[in-house]
Every structure is written in structure tokens, then in C-alpha cells.
């Protein structure tokens, strides 16, 4: 990567350097570009966030669009979310039961299932699934509008494209992911309960006893808060990638893939941050 082709002329700024210095510059140049690119990327997204927050004030522009995107992100994702949550709950109950060794009361299955589903799995898996399904869709839609110059047309018509395209999607993401996460919690717990009661030797009463153990309302708040953050992160990052797309259809595809990756990474980073910051308050 740092090798320069023999037939390529030496850059003017390094022409007067010794060969060792040129080699050092050639070695560090890609890393420097990467570092600058990283900070520049953060800065560009910060500017975009500023524009987005400013666009929240144009309620008349984004409000009519919000429900359409809420349906697209929320209602249309219900079947997929329920399916994923049901399987996750079932697997957690089964794995928990079969990892217990003799001597541990079986109500632990209900306790661990509740903790895993509520605190971690329901918001996280829902967010990751939606990062693929919804995030890709957001990027592709906005990216295509950028490539086909529809965004430029909106600007020409004195519409704020951010308020019209980005804000409704972010609002939908912020509101619908918690809703889907609550649904995933309920489906996951019911699935875990049914699996534990029917497929293992854990009785319904034991599962319910574990379900109650150490429960605090803050655990639900924590789950919803995480989903809220995940929804905002996914919709914002995916909207940005679509908004800055260029170079035609290929660019849209590249931006879509990048958006999904960024969305998933952001979800995992936020998950870790919320755990570090809020986990101490989860103890009953």
C-alpha cells in the first residue's frame, strides 16, 4: 500500500527529501489519511446533525411525512420483529435450562430469560434486524433521490430537503424502535415461557417466580431507552449516507452497504455505552 510505482513521478512536496524520509512519508501517509478521514467523517456527521436539529423546527414540512415512515419502519416491521423475538426467547429459555447444573432452582430459567430478553436481546436484535431492513431502505431511498437530483429539485423549490426527507425518518426511527422493542420483549418472554413450560421440566409457576425475581420498572425503562437510542442512531446514520451519496447507482449501493455497517456498529457501541453507564442502576 505504501509502495509507489516506479514509473510514477515523485510528488513535489517530497521531491527534495532523502530517500529514507520519502519512505517514512510514504509509510505514514495512508494512516494519516485514514485518521484525518475518520475525524472528517465525524465532523461531517456533526454538521449534518446540526442541520437535522435545525430542521426539527419545520414541523409543517416533516409532520405529514412522519406517519408514512412510521408505518414503513414500525408497522411493516412487526412480523419480522415478532418472528425474531419468538425464536430468540425460545432459544434463551432452552439454553438456560440445559446449562443449569443440579442444585440450582429452576426458577432461574425465568429470571435469566427475563434479564436477557428485556435488557439485551429484545432491543439489540430488533435494532440489528432493522438496521438491515429499514436502514438499507432509508439509504437507498435518499441516495436515489440524491443521484436523480430530486434533492436538488427540492432545494430549488425552497423545500428544506433535510426537514422533508431526513427528519421524518429519524422521528419514525426514534419512536417506532421502542415500540417494536416492547413488542419484542413481550413476544420473547411469552415464547420463553411457553418453551420452558412445554419443552423442559420447568413448570409455569417456577418460570413466573423467576420472572418476578429482582424485577424493577427501571429495567423496562432501560430497554425502551436503548431502543430509542438505537432507532435514532440507525435512522440518522442511514439518512446521512443516503444524503451524501454520489457517483450513480454504484454509489447508492456502496452507500447502502456502508450505512448498514455503520448502523450496526453504532448500535453495538451504544449498547456498550448504555450498559456501562446504566447497568449499576439496574440492580434491584
Amino acid at each position, binding site marked *: 500500500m505504501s509502495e509507489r510505482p516506479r514509473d510514477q513521478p515523485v510528488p513535489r512536496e517530497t521531491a527534495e527529501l532523502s530517500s529514507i524520509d520519502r519512505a517514512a512519508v510514504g509509510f505514514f501517509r495512508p494512516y494519516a489519511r485514514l485518521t484525518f478521514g475518520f475525524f472528517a467523517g465525524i465532523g461531517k456527521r456533526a454538521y449534518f446533525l446540526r442541520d437535522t436539529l435545525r430542521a426539527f423546527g419545520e414541523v409543517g414540512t416533516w409532520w405529514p411525512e412522519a406517519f408514512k415512515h412510521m408505518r414503513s419502519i414500525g*408497522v411493516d416491521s*412487526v412480523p419480522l420483529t415478532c418472528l425474531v423475538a419468538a425464536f430468540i426467547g425460545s432459544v434463551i429459555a432452552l439454553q438456560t435450562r440445559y446449562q443449569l447444573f443440579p442444585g440450582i432452582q429452576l426458577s432461574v430459567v425465568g429470571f435469566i430469560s427475563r434479564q436477557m430478553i428485556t435488557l439485551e436481546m429484545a432491543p439489540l436484535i430488533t435494532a440489528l434486524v432493522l438496521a438491515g431492513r429499514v436502514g438499507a431502505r432509508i439509504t437507498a431511498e435518499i441516495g436515489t433521490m440524491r443521484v436523480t437530483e430530486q434533492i436538488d429539485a427540492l432545494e430549488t423549490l425552497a423545500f428544506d430537503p433535510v426537514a422533508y426527507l431526513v427528519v421524518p425518518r429519524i422521528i419514525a426511527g426514534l419512536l417506532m424502535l421502542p415500540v417494536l422493542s416492547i*413488542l419484542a420483549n413481550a413476544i420473547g418472554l411469552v415464547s420463553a415461557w411457553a418453551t420452558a413450560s412445554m419443552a423442559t421440566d420447568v413448570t409455569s409457576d417456577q418460570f413466573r417466580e423467576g420472572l418476578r425475581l429482582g424485577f424493577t420498572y427501571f429495567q423496562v425503562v432501560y430497554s425502551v431507552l436503548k431502543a430509542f437510542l438505537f432507532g435514532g442512531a440507525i435512522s440518522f446514520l442511514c439518512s446521512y449516507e443516503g444524503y451524501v451519496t454520489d457517483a450513480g447507482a454504484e454509489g447508492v449501493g456502496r452507500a447502502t452497504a456502508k450505512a448498514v455497517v455503520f448502523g450496526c456498529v453504532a448500535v453495538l457501541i451504544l449498547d456498550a455505552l448504555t450498559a456501562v453507564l446504566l447497568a449499576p442502576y439496574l440492580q434491584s
Partner: protein
Amino acid sequence: MKRRNEVLVGLLTLSAIIIVVLGSIWIARGGLTTGYRLYVKFPWSAGLKLGQPVLLGGVTVGFVEDVDLREEGIVVTTINITINKPIPRTVVAVVEPNGVFGDKQVALRGVPSKNSWQKGDTIPAAIEAAGIDALVARMDTASGRLADVVKTVKLKMVDEGGIEDLRKTLAKMNTLAGTLGQVVQDQSSNLTLTMAAVRKGASALDSTMIDSTVRNLRATTATVAKLTEDLRGTTARVDALLAKADTGKGTVGMLMNDPGLYNDLRRLTMRLDTLTAEFKKDPRKFVKLSIF
């Protein structure tokens, strides 16, 4: 289309709100019925937390709804009785282990009674039996002491060369044991020889001679006994004589006890001395020899 979106989104959101509210209440209260609350004041370190079961006669009748830590060293525990049954007034609440990994539950122990605790009453708490925690604590202490012992043994035996010393001592003990074995072997052979000589000497003794010697010894013993008896009689008589002499009776007694006689004898002796001296000085004064 727009109206339809709004309705669907509204339905989904409302469903989520209902689920989260009712679900949380259901999990926290163990159902949608409220039950009734009783209170127990446990000491600190009871190890209780929300949701732990409350048992009466081994049957779950409720759960721990709230735990309030008080500064005066007690934990006011709210228990929610979810079944529609009275709790006998004779019961006391005990925190006992649930499983082997330190989880707890509240057991209501007592006998059936017609009187029952009413809503809001405080059930007395009893001392909990030694459970898994106590055993684990005891094991922790024991293992800690064992670790100290091992550490000390390592220090003494390994770091300070105790094992080497022990090895040397064992080598010396081995040598000593060998020497002792040799000595025992020698002494054993000597003892064998001695025993053989004793057996030989014993077999050489004439039993007739021994019998004769024994008879003589018996006769001698009888003679000595008679002599002793005579001596005892003689001694008695001498004692009587001495007693008589001491009392001044008889000639000897008077000789021994009369000072006048002693003085007379002294004077007689002095006169005899004087007479002897005068006789030596002038015999003719006393002897007149005439032949013709």
C-alpha cells in the same frame, strides 16, 4: 392511505403502551390482582431482594414486594400475599436459603390458627437457621486458614530449606535405624546364648538336693523363731529387772538410787587410800613381826 397509516401506527403504539404497562405490573405484582400487604422487620444482611417468593407451609403464597433499608439496623420488608387465604397469626417469618447458590426466600412458619394477620400487620421475624451462607462462610474461613497453613508450610519447608533438613534428618534416622538393627541383632544372639546357658544351668540342678536344702532352711527358720521367742522372754525379764532397779527396790536398786550409800563408799575409799599410804610409809606401825 394517509389515514390508514395513522390508524395503524396509532394501534401499534397503543398496543406497545398497554403491553409495557400491564406487563410490568403483571411481572412486578405476580399478576393483575393486588393481593394484600404484610410487613416484616428483618435485621440487616437478610439478603432479600424484590420478587423473592414467600412460602407458607411450603406453598408459595406471595412475594417480596419492597425492601426498605433502615438506619437502625433493620430491613422493613413488604410482602405481597397474592392468594386469597388468611395467614395464621401464630406464624413467624424466617429468611431461608432457596437453592444452593445463596438465593433467599421468606418462609412463614407456625401452626394453624383461627386468628389471622390482617392487611398492613407486621409479622414477627425469627432467627434464621444456619443455611448455605453460614456453611459457605465457615468453608471460606477454613479454606483461608488452610491457605495460611500451606503458606507457612511452604515458607518453612521450601523457602527456608525445611525439606532439605527433613531429608537429612531422615537419612540420619535411616543410619541410626540401621545401627540399632545391628545392635539388636547382636544383642539378640547374645540373649539367645544366655538363655541357652540358663536353660542348661536349670537343667543341671538336682531337685532332691534342693528339697533337702529347703527342709533345712525350714528347720533353721523354726529354730530362729524359737530363739527369737526365748530372746523376747529374756528381754521381758531384763526389762522387769531394770524397772525394779529404777524404782530403787532390791539391792541393786538401792545401790543405784541411794546417794548415802554412794557417799559412804567414797569416804571408805578415801580412808582405805589414807590407810594404804600410811602402811607404805611405816609398815611396822601396823605389823609387828617377832620370830622369837
